[in-house]
C-alpha cells in the first residue's frame, strides 16, 4: 500500500452552539479515489473546509506529504497542493475558459498579462483531461458538465497533488458522469489523491477505492470499498446495525380508504430532477417520502406544489384534473408546503410572528379582505397556545425564535389556511427533541382530522414512526413502496440503498 498523502488526525471544529467535528481522522493515499460519505450534518463539508483552509480546525493536525500544514485560506491550501472543485461551479461565467483556468494566477510580467501564456496553460490543463474545447469560448456558453471539467482543469493548473471533488456529479447526466469518472481514473493513474464527496452510492461503488464514513461530526470508520456492501454502508451512514432484527410496526394506523385520493399525480416528472412517478394521497393518511439525500424527495415535493414546472405527467386534486403552475395555485387548491430550508424558503426573518403566521391565509383571502388586527391576534393566540409556540408575544420578530418555534409558526401558517394536503419537507430538521415530539403529535392530529400528509425526512425511524406507507426514491427515481407489516426500518433502509437488487 502506498504511503499516506494526506493524514488528518483528531480534527475538531466548533461553531457557535454546534460541535461540527470531533476527533475525526481522515487518510488519503496517493493514487486512490477516496469517498467521503455521510448524511446531512455528518460533517463532510466541514471536514473539506478544514482541509482546504476555509475554516481552520480548532483541534487536530493535518499532515500532507509528511509535512505538518496549517492552511488558513484556500489559497494557502492550493499552494500546498490541495485543490477543490465545489458542487456549485464557482467560476466566472462571463470570462473565457482560458481566463477562468488561470484566474488569479495569470502568467505575465510587471502586471501585464501574457495572453499567449494564458491560452497555452489553459490548453495544457485541458489536454491533460483529454477535453477538447476552444479556450477562448465564454464559460457561460458551455454545458454544466463542461464547466465542471473547466473547474477541474483550473484545480489541476495549480499542480495539485490532492484533488477534492465536492459533489461534482450533482448536476450531470449519466454520460457526463461516466466521462468524469474516466478523468478521475486517469488522474488516479497519474498518482493524484482524489477525495470524492457524493450522495450517490452507485457512484461510490463505480469509482472509489476506499471510503470514509462520518456521522454527526464523528468518524464512523474507514473501509475498502470492495469490502463493504451497500447495506452495511447505509447502515453505517444512518447509524443503525441493519442486520439486527428490527421490526417495529408502523405506529400509524393503516387506512385503506376507498375514498378517492385528494391529491394524485400520474407520471409526474421533471428532467434532471425526478423521473416520472405516481403519487396518491388519501385523506387521513400520512405517506412518507423516503430516500437518501439527493434521491429526489424535495424535487418531488416541489413538483407537487407547483414550484418547479413538471415536464411530464398529470395532477388531480379531489379527483378533478388540475394544473398547478405556482405555489399560489397550489394553495388555492388546498395544498400546503413546509420547505426543508426554513431560513431561505420559509420565514420572513425581520417580520413578526404575527405577520409570518397570517401570511398564507391572508394571501389566500387576497389584498382587499384584510384580516383585522383582532382577527390576526385571535389566530395567533390560538396557534401559539395550540402548538405551544414559545415567543415573548406575537409582535416579536420571528428570527429571534428558536428553530423549533420558527418551524411551529410555519406549521401554524399553513394550518390557518385549513388545507387538505400538507407536504412537510424535513419538518424536524435542526430542532430539539421536545419540539420534534410535538411536531410528530401534530402530524398525527392532522391525520386524524382527515388531512393527507406527505412526510419527508432523512431519519428513517421517524418515517417509520409517523407514516402508514412510504414511497421510496433512489437516485432520482421511484424505487418502490413499503406498506403494512413490511414497513420497518430495516426494510426501508434496504430499499433506500437498493440492496435487494
Amino acid at each position, binding site marked *: 500500500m502506498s504511503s499516506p498523502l494526506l493524514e488528518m488526525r483528531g480534527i475538531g471544529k466548533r461553531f457557535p452552539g454546534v460541535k461540527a467535528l470531533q476527533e475525526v481522522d481522515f487518510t488519503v493515499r496517493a493514487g486512490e479515489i477516496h469517498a467521503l460519505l455521510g448524511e446531512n450534518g455528518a460533517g463532510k463539508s466541514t471536514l473539506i473546509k478544514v482541509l482546504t483552509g476555509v475554516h481552520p480546525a480548532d483541534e487536530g493536525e493535518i499532515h500532507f506529504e509528511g509535512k505538518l500544514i496549517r492552511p488558513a485560506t484556500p489559497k494557502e491550501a492550493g499552494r500546498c497542493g490541495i485543490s477543490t472543485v465545489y458542487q456549485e461551479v464557482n467560476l466566472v461565467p462571463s470570462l473565457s475558459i482560458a481566463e477562468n483556468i488561470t484566474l488569479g494566477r495569470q502568467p505575465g510580467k510587471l502586471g501585464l498579462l501574457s495572453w499567449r501564456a494564458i491560452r497555452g496553460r489553459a490548453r495544457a490543463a485541458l489536454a491533460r483531461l483529454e477535453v477538447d474545447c476552444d479556450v477562448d469560448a465564454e464559460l457561460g456558453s458551455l454545458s454544466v458538465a463542461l464547466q465542471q471539467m473547466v473547474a477541474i482543469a483550473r484545480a489541476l493548473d495549480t499542480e495539485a497533488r490532492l484533488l477534492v471533488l465536492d459533489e461534482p456529479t450533482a448536476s450531470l447526466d449519466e454520460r457526463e458522469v461516466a466521462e468524469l469518472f474516466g478523468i478521475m481514473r486517469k488522474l488516479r493513474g497519474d498518482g493524484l489523491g482524489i477525495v470524492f464527496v457524493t450522495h450517490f452510492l452507485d457512484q461510490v461503488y463505480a469509482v472509489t477505492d476506499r471510503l470514509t464514513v462520518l456521522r454527526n461530526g464523528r468518524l464512523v470508520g474507514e473501509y475498502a470499498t470492495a469490502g463493504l456492501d451497500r447495506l452495511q454502508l447505509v447502515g453505517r451512514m444512518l447509524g443503525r446495525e441493519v442486520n439486527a432484527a428490527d421490526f417495529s410496526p408502523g405506529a400509524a394506523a393503516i387506512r385503506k380508504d376507498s375514498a378517492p385520493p385528494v391529491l394524485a399525480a400520474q407520471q409526474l416528472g421533471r428532467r434532471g430532477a425526478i423521473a416520472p412517478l405516481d403519487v396518491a394521497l388519501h385523506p387521513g393518511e400520512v405517506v412518507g417520502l423516503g430516500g437518501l439525500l439527493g434521491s429526489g424527495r424535495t424535487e418531488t415535493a416541489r413538483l407537487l406544489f407547483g414550484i418547479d414546472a413538471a415536464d411530464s405527467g398529470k395532477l388531480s386534486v379531489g379527483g378533478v384534473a388540475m394544473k398547478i403552475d405556482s*405555489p399560489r395555485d397550489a394553495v388555492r387548491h388546498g395544498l400546503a408546503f413546509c420547505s426543508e430550508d426554513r431560513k*431561505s424558503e420559509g*420565514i*420572513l426573518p425581520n417580520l413578526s410572528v404575527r*405577520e409570518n403566521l397570517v401570511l*398564507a391565509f391572508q*394571501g389566500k383571502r387576497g389584498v382587499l379582505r384584510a384580516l383585522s388586527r383582532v382577527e390576526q391576534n385571535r389566530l395567533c393566540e390560538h396557534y401559539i397556545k395550540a402548538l405551544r409556540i414559545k415567543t415573548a408575544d406575537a409582535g416579536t420578530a420571528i428570527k429571534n425564535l428558536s428553530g423549533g418555534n420558527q418551524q411551529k409558526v410555519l406549521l401554524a401558517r399553513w394550518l390557518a389556511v385549513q388545507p387538505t394536503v400538507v407536504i412537510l419537507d424535513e419538518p424536524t430538521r435542526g430542532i430539539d427533541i421536545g419540539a420534534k415530539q410535538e411536531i410528530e403529535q401534530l402530524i398525527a392530529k392532522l391525520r386524524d382530522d382527515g388531512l393527507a400528509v406527505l412526510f419527508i425526512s432523512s431519519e428513517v425511524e421517524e418515517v417509520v414512526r409517523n407514516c402508514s406507507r412510504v414511497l421510496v426514491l433512489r437516485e432520482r427515481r421511484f424505487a418502490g413502496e413499503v406498506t403494512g407489516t413490511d414497513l420497518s426500518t430495516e426494510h426501508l433502509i434496504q430499499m433506500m440503498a437498493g440492496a435487494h437488487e
Partner: protein
Amino acid sequence: MKARSPLVWPLAGLAALLLLNAVFNPGFLRITLLGGHLYGVPVDILAQGSRTMLVALGMTLVIATGGIDLSVGSVVAIAGAVCAVLLEGGHSLGLTLTAAVGAGLLAGTTNGVLVARAGVQPIVATLILMVAGRGIAQLIVGGQVVIISSPSFDYLANGFLFGFPVAPLLVAALYLITHFAVRRTAAGLFIEAVGDNETAARFAGLAATRIKTCTYVFCGACAGFAGILSAANIRAADAYRAGENMELDAIFAVVVGGTALTGGRFLILGSAIGALLIQTLTTTMYNLGMPPAIAPVPKAIVIVFACLLQSSAFRAQMGGLFKTRTVA
C-alpha cells in the same frame, strides 16, 4: 424596555437641522401671515419639498420590495412635457392631468414588467427609462422649453388654500391615503413579505410578481404627479432640467426615513420626513449663500450622518464608545 418608534431617528435629524438653522438665523422658523397667506422659511420648505416627498412616496414601496426606481426624475420630465403640450394645445386641465399621471403609470408599468416579469435587475431596468425618458420628454416638447400660461394649472403648485400652499396639502393627502391604503388592506404586509424574503412569500402563495409590478406602477404614478407639480411650479416644461437628480433625493429621503434599501419593513411617513430633511438642507445652503456648485458636499456629509444614525449597529458602537470613555 419599550420599543421606540422607528420614526424617532429621522424626526431627530430633522429637528436637529431646524434647530441649527434657528440658532444661526433667528428668523428661520418665523412664520408670518401676509394677505391671508402664510409665509416663512418653513412654509417654503414644505412647498418646495412637496415634489421630492411625492416621488419618495412611490419610491418607498419600490424599495420595500427590495427594488429601486432610477427613472423617476425622467418621468417627472415626461409628465411635465405632456402637461405643457396638452395645455398649450388648448386641452382641458382634467384631460391634461389625467394624461400626465397616465404617462407616469405607463412608465411604471414598463419598469414593473421589466423587473418583476422579465427578471431584469431593478437598477438596470429603471436605468433604461432614466436615460431614455429625457429623450422622450425632449421629443414631446420638440426640444423647446414650453411656457405654460394656465392660471388653474399654476394654482396647483403656487396657490394657497385657507392660507396654506396647495401643493403640500395635496401631497399630504396622498400620503395619508396611501398610508391607509397599504395598512388597512393587506398590501403593506404583502409588500413587506416580498421585500423580506421573496422566495418564502412566493411559497406562501403570494403573487410576488404582481405585487412587485404594482409598486413600480404606483411609483410611476407618483412621479407623474410630481411632474405636474414641477411644471406648475416653474410654469414651464423644461425637459432637460425638470426632475434632475430627483431619483437620488427620493432614495435618500426613503433611506433617511427608516426604510432599508435591502427591502422589507417600510415607513411611509418616515419618507416624508426624509424628504423634508433634504429640502431643509437645500434651503439652508441657499440661505447661507453657498454656491450651487459646492452644495453637494455639505449635503453628502449630512447624508452620511443621517444614514449612520439609521444603523443600529452604528448606534450600538457609538454607545459602546461612550461607555468605555466613562469607564476610563
